């Protein structure tokens, strides 16, 4: 008998990125298959292709042995392929029943929605999943787990043969997760094939029969869960060929600049401590959601701190807002350069001047001349490719935008520079230049605290690596000689999950 789902040689290109490259796999009826990989490995993309959300560029898809030429969302629905999205696709203001039958509500005469029939059918579908949720409730009143179940019921409302779950437990608590697992197992028992997209190893061992690992858009291997181990899966996920070499470090490490002790900023930062010296590059590693960015924000003053102490150059500070952090000599390059970093509609001059308005002014007057001179300096120094300093920043490439963002903070000459994801969405060329810049800064005696989800980046840059998990700093490694596996093990010791340890350049944009 033909497998329920068979995909052969699937490739998918986004502008500038090859998201999937010649991936094949097959799933039997009633099988729960995990799709595992780091962020950007292509697992969500593959799930969305099977669900008809994305179209493939190459390859073929067979359902129960029949080749499907045109697979869009409607065709997938008719074939009994359902997907529960990471973000959720429910309308919170409408009832459970209306969400389940969105656009396909049973009707009476004159097209009136038959509310009673709709609710009855919704109740039956939900009961099939072994839970009870009142179909008349508004979705906004449900817990995240209940909402997930409604999503599954929505998929079930059509004759379901293949169910794709994309990171379904991201918002769930432990007990809710167990409940969801029961539902998934029951569905598989009824012959539904489940594709379970996740990066949480523990869940895969608890739930799935088999696992397909993707790495950089390619198939890294398929294993039976019973015959594999955490170590093997991690190796499959991170084995790679791109390497950024460590520079020979002859840097002079100076006095302590930042001393943060048991910083507490609930809910994401529980007890985090770190010390950074002048001329030192410290990388803060950890999974997404481990509280790294939030810890940095608390140091800078952009996040309210409940406990702990922060000292800059031995002097205790209590930053109430970013202005206080700035005043103490801290600069922070935020993670999301478009939303939080840059003034996209303004030119380079104004962007660079934003942190140093008093320095580019004569008395009360803003001096265009001084600001332009400052911007010109940075354009030359950081080799920002632009026709003029009056170019609108939104028109620059990602790498050049990142450099403008760095320039904005270099302009204030910080003692401590926090850089959150320095190379997200930046091409390889700009990447190595940004590394060069950061090293040059450290050479000048600036203390650098770099948050990065990109392990090769961490290993290439760091003098020391501090690892966070669940809002706590859980360990420290010397930058020289550390391996990705060591970092991952520290980061996952508490959560047993290998989250998005690495970002692919360009994937955030794709």
């Amino acid at each position: 008998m033909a497998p329920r789902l068979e995909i052969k040689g699937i490739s998918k290109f986004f502008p500038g990125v090859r998201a999937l490259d010649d991936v094949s796999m097959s799933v039997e009826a009633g099988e729960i298959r995990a799709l595992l990989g780091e962020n950007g490995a292509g697992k969500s993309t593959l799930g969305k292709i099977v669900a008809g959300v994305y179209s493939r560029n190459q390859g073929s898809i067979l359902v129960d042995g029949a080749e499907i030429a045109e697979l869009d969302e409607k065709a997938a629905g008719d074939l009994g392929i359902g997907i529960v999205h990471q973000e959720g696709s429910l309308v919170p203001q409408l009832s459970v029943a209306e969400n389940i039958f969105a656009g396909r509500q049973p009707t009476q005469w004159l097209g009136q929605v038959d509310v009673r029939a709709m609710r009855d059918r919704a109740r039956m579908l939900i009961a099939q999943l072994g839970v009870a949720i009142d179909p008349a409730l508004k979705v906004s009143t449900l817990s995240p787990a209940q909402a997930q179940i409604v999503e599954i019921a929505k998929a079930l409302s059509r004759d379901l043969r293949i169910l794709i779950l994309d990171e379904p437990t991201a918002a769930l608590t432990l007990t809710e997760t167990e409940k969801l697992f029961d539902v998934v197992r029951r569905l598989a028992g009824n012959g539904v094939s489940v594709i379970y997209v996740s990066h949480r190893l523990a869940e895969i061992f608890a739930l799935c029969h088999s696992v397909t690992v993707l790495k950089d858009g390619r198939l890294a291997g398929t294993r039976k869960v019973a015959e594999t181990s955490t170590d093997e899966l991690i190796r499959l996920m991170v084995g790679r060929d791109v390497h950024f070499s460590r520079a020979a470090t002859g840097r002079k490490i100076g006095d302590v600049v930042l001393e943060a002790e048991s910083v507490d900023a609930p809910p994401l930062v529980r007890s985090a401590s770190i010390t950074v010296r002048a001329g030192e590059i410290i990388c803060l590693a950890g999974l997404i959601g481990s509280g790294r960015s939030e810890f940095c924000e608390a140091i800078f003053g952009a996040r309210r701190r409940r406990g702990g102490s922060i000292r800059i150059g031995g002097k205790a500070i209590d930053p109430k807002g970013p202005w206080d952090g700035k005043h103490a000599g801290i600069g922070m390059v935020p993670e999301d350069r478009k939303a939080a970093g840059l003034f996209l509609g303004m030119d380079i001059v104004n962007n660079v001047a934003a942190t140093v308005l008093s320095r580019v002014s004569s008395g009360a007057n803003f001096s265009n001349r001084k600001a332009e001179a400052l911007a010109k300096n940075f354009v030359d120094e950081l080799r920002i490719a632009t026709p003029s300093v009056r170019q609108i920043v939104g028109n620059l490439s990602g790498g050049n935008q990142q450099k403008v963002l760095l320039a904005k903070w270099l302009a204030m000459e910080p003692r401590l520079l926090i850089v959150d994801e320095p190379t997200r969405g930046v091409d390889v060329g700009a990447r190595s230049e940004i590394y060069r810049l950061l090293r040059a800064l450290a050479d000048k005696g600036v203390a650098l605290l770099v948050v990065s989800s990109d392990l090769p980046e961490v290993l290439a840059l760091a003098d020391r690596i501090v690892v966070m998990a669940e809002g706590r700093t859980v360990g420290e490694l010397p930058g020289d000689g550390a391996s990705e596996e060591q970092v991952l093990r520290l980061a996952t010791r508490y959560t047993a999950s290998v989250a998005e340890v690495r970002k692919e350049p360009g994937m955030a944009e794709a």
Partner: protein
Amino acid sequence: MQITQPMADNAEHRRENLFVRMVRRLADSRELTLFVLVIALALVMSIVYPNNFPTASNMRAVLLNLAPVGILVCGMMLLMIGGTFDLSVGSTLAFSGVWAAVVAGWWGWPAEVAVLVGILVGALCGLVNGLIVTRIGINALIATLGTLTIYRSLTYVTAGTGVTPITDAFAAYGRAADPLLRIQSPFWAMLVLVLVGGWLVARTRFFRQFYFIGGNPRAAQLSGIRVDRLILIGFVIMGALAGLAGVLGAARLNSAVVNAGVDDQLKVITATVLGGASLKGGEGTILGGILGVLFIALIENAMIINAIGVFWQGLVVGLVLLFAVSLDRFKTSGRA
């Protein structure tokens, strides 16, 4: 980003390109667009109605009538550059005027104190708006829509049908016997505010921060700019300006009218947007705002002179607004 234009082979194409290029040049500077429109309108009116339009008395009337909106536009432009706005200005204007009149007319306090009280009441109204927006976090549309009716209602509660007459000493602030160029004080106050405000907003470090806030509030906050504090200050300035406009208006008539400035908020916002502000914030100049006010005033004046009637005014102003904003699509540099 440079827009490259394909070579046109036929004459018709070339003519269109020239036209498009001219439109682009104009669209790049809203101030220039408006300036050209104002001059064109004035020229046409002078030619068609040489006896009615270009006379000293008509000009004086136009300038005096646009003064209150001209004062308000300075504050509104500042707020809109910062990405917010205040719908309650018309009510604030009436409330301040009435309080100044109560203090001078009913309580018999000196006129100077009454003027000061009026401006302070306006500033206080602005402070309340600002606190609601920045501390409670209610969005400016809802917050100032609420205070729009609250301040108007408080105006009625304070003075019923109004205060008439106030006192001669108080009225002297708005109608001198022989003022400069025979234009009364509201215009001169507006002129000073526009010049000083224009310089402040365009050139000073402090007010420049509003452009950053409007451009990207989160980035501004993370750049160490005290976003909430500045927005609060912006609202207070707006309120104080509305207070001043209310006081001068009451003085000019020697009467505090309870429904003064009823439609002013929309007129001011129209002028501000016409003058180059965007609802998203980060753009605009005081010069543009005042040109917007001037243009609307001229259109109203033209409508009255050629006797088409006031009923058509709104139609023309609305069309001009839509036209001016749609010009933005022709801007040479856009966001990628």
